[in-house]
Each structure stands twice: as C-alpha cells, then as structure tokens.
C-alpha cells in the first residue's frame, strides 16, 4: 500500500468516525434548538487550542476543557442551555475572538490557525485516528445508553420528571457529548464548521423520518456519505477538505428538501 493511499484512508476513516458520532448528536441539537449553543461551544475550541499551546497540553485536552467550560457557562446563563439568542450569540463570537487573540499572544509559536478553524483532515495521523474513533465510540455509547431518557427529557422536562428522569442530568450528558464531539471533530472540519456537520445531515434526514431512531440512523448515513463524497470531491477538485465535506452535506440537504417538497406536491395532486 502506498503512502498516498494511507493518508487518504486515514482521512476517510477520520471523516467517517466524526460523521457517525455527529449524526445522532446533531438530531438532539435540532430537536432542542441548540444550534447557537453548538456554535458557542465549538467556537470556544480556539481558546482551547491557545490554552493547550500555552501550558503544553495535548490539543484534544485543551479543546475538551474549554468547550466543557463554555457549555457549562452558557447553560448556566441561559437556564435551559438554549434560551436566549443574545447570550448565545455574544458567547459564540466572544469565544472565537478571544481565542484568536489568545493564540496570537502565545510567544514563540507560529501556528497555522486555519487548520484549527477549518480542519486539516489530510494531516490526520494514527494517534489522531485513535482519538477520533475513541471519542466517537464514547459519544455513541453515551447516547445509546441514555437514548430513551434523553428523548423524554427533550420532549418535555416535566414529563421526564414525572417518569423519574432528571432532565438536568440529561442536559449535562448532551453538553458533555457536544464538547467531546467538538474536541474530536476539530481536526476534521475545524471549529467553525463543526456545527454544520452536526446540523446538516440531521436536517437532511428529517423529512424522511417517522421516528427519532430513523432520523438518527438516516443522519448517520447521510453524514457518512457527505464525509466520503466530500473528501473525494476535494481530492478531485483540489479544494480544502473540511469545507468541501460541509458543502457536500449542504448539497445533500438541498436535494432532500427538494425531494420532500416534490413528494408533498405529488400527494396533494
């Protein structure tokens, strides 16, 4: 096997791992209307990169820590984690700006910021791959284990409480999974486009789903297709990989929405 095959295969595996974990999580982001919350969390990742470089921590650890802190802070400020657009908007953009400033302040290090903003999937090494698949497995395991409880809490907090479920705990589980997803995905699509990878496949799956489970599985399939298809396109057209993957996902979304509209019209006639 040639070297070229190897890094492309590694890239494909990395994209696949992130897409599979992002899909069910992205469903919750949509159901709970947490898109802005996802932005705030993922934009804190750059701050995490700065922190990791400053204190010589692994990037993954710094990002996970900062994302968790940001997610907790924002949940606290907005009460239910996705309450106020304003607070979330302020947090998302401040985190990004602060992160960019912080990175520039670190003495003696010149880093390629764009690889953290937009990902550097072709540079994924074996260790990265282990982190990505480990993280993805943890996210999927967590969501699978608590699936019913998460769904009930998402549907209605009081309904969950009456059934003996603590909706606050389920929210913390989702927050943790989200921070983990950001830490895992930053190498693949970068901090700016992580929310896109969460949202778009899940949104594309929505019109063709009748239950939460089918939506999550369909989203996983579409996300995987976007990851592999996007990588292939970026290789052929020599475009940046992360943005190409997201653009492919957007294409799939546009196709899905059009198809759904056609189907509705056909039913009406």
């Amino acid at each position: 096997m040639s070297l070229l095959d190897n890094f492309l295969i590694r890239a494909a595996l990395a994209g696949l791992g992130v897409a599979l974990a992002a899909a069910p999580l992205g469903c919750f982001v949509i159901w709970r209307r947490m898109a802005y919350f996802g932005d705030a969390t993922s934009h804190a990742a750059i701050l995490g990169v700065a922190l990791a470089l400053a204190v010589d921590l692994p990037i993954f650890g710094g990002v996970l820590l900062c994302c968790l802190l940001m997610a907790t802070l924002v949940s606290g400020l907005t009460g239910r984690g996705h309450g106020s657009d304003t607070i979330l908007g302020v947090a998302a953009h401040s985190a990004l700006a602060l992160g960019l400033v912080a990175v520039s302040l670190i003495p003696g290090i010149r880093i390629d910021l764009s690889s953290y903003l937009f990902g550097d999937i072709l540079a994924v090494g074996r260790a990265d791959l282990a982190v990505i698949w480990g993280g993805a497995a943890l996210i999927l395991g967590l969501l699978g284990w608590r699936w019913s409880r998460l769904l009930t809490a998402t549907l209605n907090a009081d309904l969950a409480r009456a059934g003996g479920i603590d909706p606050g705990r389920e929210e913390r589980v989702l927050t943790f999974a989200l921070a983990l997803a950001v830490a895992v995905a930053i190498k693949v699509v970068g901090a700016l486009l992580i929310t896109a990878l969460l949202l778009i496949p899940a949104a594309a799956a929505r019109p063709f789903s009748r239950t939460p489970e089918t939506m999550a599985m369909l989203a996983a399939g579409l996300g995987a297709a976007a990851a592999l298809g996007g990588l292939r396109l970026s290789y052929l057209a020599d475009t940046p990989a992360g943005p190409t993957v997201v653009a492919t996902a957007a294409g799939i979304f546009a196709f899905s929405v059009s198809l759904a509209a056609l189907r509705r019209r056909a039913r009406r006639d």
Partner: protein
Amino acid sequence: MPRLPRERVVSLVEIEGLDVRLDGRPVLSRIDFRIDPGEIVTLVGPNGSGKTTLMRSVIGAIPSAAGRIRRRPGLRIGYVPQKLHVDTTLPLTVGRFLSLPVRIGAASTRAALEQAGAGALLERQMSELSGGQFQRVMLARALLARPELLILDEATQGLDQPGSAAFYRQIETIRDETGCAVLMVSHELHVVMAASDRVICLNGHVCCHGTPEHVSSAPEYRALFGTGTGGALALYRHDHDHRHDPDCAHAGGPGHDHPRAGTERTPG
C-alpha cells in the same frame, strides 16, 4: 372501595406549609395538601391561581421556597401536563411516544390506545394530532406507566362535551379498576366535582377544601365562581356516597392540620 384503617394508610404525597416563588414572585403560599391511595381530588381555581404550579411541585419539578413535600418512595406517577408542545423537528409517531421512556410491547400499546379511544392513531405523527386526539394519547401514555397517582392538568381541553364527559367516566372507571389516586385540574366545575371525592379551591393559597358539596357552598368558592354551579352540581352528582366516608377521608394524622370535611375553612 374498601379503605384501610386510617393509621395504616400511607399518603402518596404529603405537602406541608409549601411556599413556591416563580421569578421571585410568590405563587403559592402555606399550602397543606395530601392525597391518599384511591382518592380523586380536584383542584379548582381561577386562571393563574397556581393549580399547574402545585401539580408541578407534586412531581418535583419546582424547588419550594419553604415547606415540605413528601412523596411515597418509588411512587409511580402518570402525568398529563397542561401544555405539551411536540416540535415539528422531532419525528414521533404515537406508537413511539407511548414507549417513552419505557419500551412497551406492541400489544399493550394497541390496547392502551383502544382503551383511550384512539386506536386508529398508532402510526400518526404526534405533531399532527388534533387537540382532542392529543389528549387521548396523553392519557393512554400516562396509564401505561401503571400509575399509583394520575395527575391530569386540564386534560379535557380540546375534547368535545360528550368526549369530556366520557373522559371523566373513564377516569372513575380506571380509579375503580386499578385503585390509583387521581389529582386533576378542570374548569368544567360541575362535571368534575360530581366525579371527585375531594375538591380543593385554590387561589394562591387554599381557599377552602372538602367534599364537592361543601366547597360549592363555601363563601370563598362562591366569591370566586359565583353561585351558578351549586344547582348544576346537585343535578350532575350521582350517588358516590358509598365511595368514601367524609370523616375518614379528611382527618389528618398527628401534626397535620387538615380540618374535617364539612367544617374546613382556611382563614384568608
């Protein structure tokens, strides 16, 4: 329904001196409340009087500013909230909804829907149901939890009049068959009161409570609702007297100040 001797009845929920504040505003004050196995207790009161808040306190959804809420350990609660919005982004069939959070077999799901008069809805999307269909599905789900306490917050909203009368008859049947207690809120005073063992009239505090006859003739109640429902009550009320003995239904244990039926009045 045979009742255990008073000493051996453990209340499902017991509330003493409960104060609740929402957004810093006092919503409930000095609430004393208990519900025993098999009782049907109805909360009445004008809009904003704290009925929903009291129910949410009972299920443990709201921290109390003062007082004590004791639920029997392991109490199974079936809850039909006043409002439940199913977001259109969430695909959810009626069948799947019934299996949340506990997976229910297809046969039980079907049976529960049939019983709630919603048999044809199994494959429909929750976000596409009419108000009345939605309420029937909510009741079916609440019953699948085999509750010891069924909490219904304006559960007949969206039902037509025969539908709502049938609904209350069904609640009584369910109570008689399963022995579960029922705590409900309704604005259909005369119908609800006819089906209740006890009525609590709420307006931020407990205005008055006791048997439906007692409450409907209490001046506090009349001040809130007028006198019109008294006559209607007599019409709708059929013989429920065998169901409870007013003396044992309301006597509080030591340390509780639940006055006896027929004499209670909360000052204020």
